[in-house]
């Protein structure tokens, strides 16, 4: 492995679903000699693109797992993380962005900046990832790359500037004009592998001059030298590139490239751009928390000789055991080294070290600072930090959203039962937004995740990869329960039925609270002995797991205890826990309990003629429409809709818009369920309980 960190690029390719990022990655791998034949996402050859290695991805034409891969271009080593485009898999995108230094935002020249691009852009901004944009599909009918550049400015507020102009569009798309070299670039050979530079076609000269002016104007904001050179009229190529690089690294300039990955056009200049404009690991500041020093922030040095700090950002259970994708931020991770998991304090020996190329791998000896690789046989969870012995650093924790939807699953037979358990434990380890639990009352296995599609994909994966056939129940929304007013409680738990008795009295009040839960002890004079206070708190906490309305967790509650009573013989930890549970029940019923439901932020992108109809469907689903953004032929409707009403929405939307609209949704907040619906839910829950009894 070469070790020039300045020639390393860790990049992610993010985009809206179907913008063509997997095809683009496939072409990149082809031109960098990592693969020797091109397969398309929904290819006729039945092989599928190299990055979409899961069966399911190949079938649906979508990328689910962000497989890491490695390639070389012009002496640079590029690690690429292919990221999923659907919002349900956002945790994958977020994780990928956490370990990347730069991003390529792929946009469709017809669809432009779509709702998912906005989500991805927000995520890039959160992790301060500098990016360049690639306007793909310039060969499609209706292609308008400059409209996309405008949308980047208007919708995403990027200082977007075109680096190329297309030569012809739609069916006539032939190549691009490079505005730095001021040359036309044509992509020849069977797979577009031969680049031919030529004079700019006469009809494009004027436009090219004008766009170059714009580019120089934008870039000169970052370099006085360039500004002076521009005034003198003589601009060296490297000076312009350097200025654009400065702007890009500051996230104040977004260079936009154009092409058609499918038609093998514009990929090589994009690769050049990755090496020219995106940062190397040394240019990105990474911060760890020193666990031995009150979580003080420490800036990591991308020095291969410094103590090791690395982050396990993705796990995969393969045929040969657990594969852990790891990014090294500082020091070097060598085969045979001992490393420490900061979370558990466990010391482990590094066995096999590999470099991943989609689902193939190559063995390597070490992973130096700034590189991404994978380890075999390391038992850890996603997001764990590994360091050299002697230091205890943790990389900043990753933002993990709570799941909002659950599904009961039942295996078809005994064999499926065993395989299902294996699959579930692997999925839960790989994906922190995917949770598994067993409902003790019904005995059902419940899986929870970020959306319908998220869970559907796991069900499919169970079937395909583990041969576990499961039946699913109706999706269940993760409701919460809360109280809406203050209420007193005064409960005595007394049990004297032979043997040691149980006695404990707990009194106080509960009230609404802005956080999850707070326990306040205001006991004076030892009404409840100090040793039992923690028992009381434990009792209240355990009661929170199951509200009295629907049996969902209770949040937003403050419990204050101010009185109680103990018995010198009969009081115990168990007695006070039981008393607290009783007190909770008593108070909760009086405190006007309410049900909270997850509300999703929904954005529907539709042709304008269906605007009214789409708003109608959202309204019928108890949606609150926040606004409608008119964009000429299309419009975007933003709304907040209860998750429980969103099941099957994609089918409805397709049928009323002739399949021309699309939508994305993400969790927004929890909000109180209207009374009539809450009553209905409680009634159903009671009926279910009766049946179970």
């Amino acid at each position, binding site marked *: 492995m070469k070790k020039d960190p300045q020639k390393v690029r860790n990049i992610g390719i993010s985009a809206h679903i179907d913008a063509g990022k997997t095809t683009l990655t496939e072409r990149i791998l082809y031109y960098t000699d990592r693969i020797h034949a091109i397969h398309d996402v929904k290819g006729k050859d039945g092989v599928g693109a190299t990055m979409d290695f899961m069966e399911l991805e190949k079938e649906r034409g979508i990328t689910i797992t962000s497989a890491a891969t490695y390639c070389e271009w012009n002496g640079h080593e590029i690690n690429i993380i292919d990221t999923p485009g659907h919002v349900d898999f956002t945790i994958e995108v977020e994780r990928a962005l956490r370990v990347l230094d730069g991003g390529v935002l792929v946009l469709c020249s017809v669809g432009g900046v779509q709702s998912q691009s906005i989500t991805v852009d927000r995520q890039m901004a959160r992790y301060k990832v500098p990016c360049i944009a690639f306007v793909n599909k310039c060969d499609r009918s209706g292609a308008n790359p400059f409209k996309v550049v405008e949308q980047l400015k208007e919708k995403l507020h990027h200082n977007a500037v075109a680096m190329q102009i297309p030569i012809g569009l739609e069916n006539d798309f032939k190549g691009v004009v490079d505005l730095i070299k001021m040359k036309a670039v044509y992509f020849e050979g069977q797979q577009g592998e031969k680049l031919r530079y030529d004079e700019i076609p006469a009809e494009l000269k004027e436009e090219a001059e004008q766009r170059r002016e714009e580019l120089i104007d934008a870039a000169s904001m970052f370099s006085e030298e360039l500004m002076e050179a521009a005034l003198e009229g003589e601009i060296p190529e490297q000076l312009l590139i350097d200025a654009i690089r400065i702007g890009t690294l500051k996230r104040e300039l977004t260079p936009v490239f154009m092409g058609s990955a499918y038609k093998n056009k514009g990929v090589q200049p994009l690769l050049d751009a990755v090496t020219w404009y995106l940062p190397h690991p040394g240019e990105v500041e990474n911060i760890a928390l020193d666990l031995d020093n009150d979580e003080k922030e420490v800036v990591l040095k991308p020095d291969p000789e410094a103590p090791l700090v690395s982050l396990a950002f993705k796990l995969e259970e393969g045929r040969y055991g657990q594969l852990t994708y790891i990014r090294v931020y500082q020091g070097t991770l060598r085969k045979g080294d001992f490393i420490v998991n900061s979370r558990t304090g466990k010391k482990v020996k590094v066995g096999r070290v590999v470099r991943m190329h989609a689902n193939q791998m190559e063995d390597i000896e070490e992973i130096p600072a700034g590189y991404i690789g994978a380890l075999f046989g390391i038992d850890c969870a996603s997001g764990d930090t590994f360091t050299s012995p002697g230091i205890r650093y943790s990389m900043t924790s990753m933002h993990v959203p709570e799941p909002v939807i659950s599904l009961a699953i039942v295996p078809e037979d005994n064999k499926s039962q065993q395989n299902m358990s294996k699959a579930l434990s692997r999925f839960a380890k790989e994906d922190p937004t995917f949770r598994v639990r067993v409902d003790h009352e019904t005995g059902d296995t419940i899986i929870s995740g970020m959306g319908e599609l998220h869970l559907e994909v796991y069900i499919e994966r169970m079937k395909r990869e583990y041969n576990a056939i499961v039946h699913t129940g109706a999706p269940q929304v993760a409701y919460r329960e809360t109280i809406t007013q203050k209420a007193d409680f005064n409960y005595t738990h007394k049990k004297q039925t032979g043997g040691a008795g149980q006695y404990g009295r707990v009194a106080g009040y509960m009230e609404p609270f802005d956080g999850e839960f707070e326990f306040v002890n205001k006991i004076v004079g030892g009404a409840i002995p100090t040793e039992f206070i923690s028992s009381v708190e434990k009792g209240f906490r355990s009661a929170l797991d199951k509200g009295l309305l629907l049996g969902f967790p209770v949040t937003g509650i403050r419990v204050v205890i101010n009185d109680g009573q103990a018995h010198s013989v009969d009081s115990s930890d168990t007695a006070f826990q039981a008393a607290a549970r009783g007190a909770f029940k008593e108070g909760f019923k009086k405190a*006007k309990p309410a049900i909270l439901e997850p509300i999703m932020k929904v954005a529907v992108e539709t042709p304008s003629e269906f605007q009214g109809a789409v*708003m109608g469907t959202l309204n019928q689903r108890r949606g609150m429409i926040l606004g409608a953004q*008119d964009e000429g032929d299309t419009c975007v409707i933003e709304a907040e809709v209860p998750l429980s009403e969103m099941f099957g929405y994609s089918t409805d939307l397709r049928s009323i818009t002739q399949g021309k609209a699309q939508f994305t949704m993400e969790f927004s907040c929890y909000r109180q369920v209207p009374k009539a619906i809450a009553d209905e839910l409680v009634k159903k829950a009671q009926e279910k309980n009766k049946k179970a009894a």
Partner: protein
Amino acid sequence: MKVSEKRKKNCSPSCCTDRDNVVYLRERSIAMLKKDLILRNPLRILGTEDKEPLKEGEFGAVLAKAGVGKTAFLVQLALSNLLRERNVLHVSLTQPVRKVCLWYEEVFHNISTEYDLKNTSELWDTILPHRFIMTFNVDDFSVAKLEERLNDLTEQGIFFPQLVIIDGLPISDESRESLAELKILAREMGFPIWYAITVRPDDALEPGQVPSSVESLADLFEVLIGLKAVKGKINVMVLKGQRNEDAGDVFLDPATLLIKNRE
């Protein structure tokens, strides 16, 4: 007298029910918050604490040079209406929905901080259903298009605006026709419209005087309010319409862009 009876006696009937004799503290506190905020109505300069300064089909406008605080003023005007549970349609021709939402969140946050309000998230949830944002590209905007969109909303019973705000409509001598069409629409649908108008840099804004930028259109507007930056403050003045002398000097705090009275 029992404590609960005493409580009941001291609060408004809307927050108690006879059914269970329970005092709903949350509802009461939201009601108080609303009352508090309504009293700080940005239009008190017009003497309209309890009634609207504009009737159905009438026009009002906030005039200022670019960047002085027209949108912030209108958002405060909208918020004071939303708190009274009046439906506000905010039409922006220059900003996307997300950005308009941010304006509301920002102004609401500033108000909450300024007056040290608690429980604001609940209050926010109660006012949100009364707001609807529509954005258009300024070049694509037409009264016919707005009317079509409004019909989409009203015919399906989704939203019935009681006040409309139009931000970003370029106003010039040629605007008379479209303003006249808007006036008809406002009359037919029964709401007043407030506009944000950017005046020319050389236009003088003086109390009681209509600036030359809108002179030829002044007859279409019942109320004109000017915002003028003077010595680190933004003065709010009535250019056309009845001024409430009791309101004293009203200005925008340049830091928060909130409307305040001079101490």
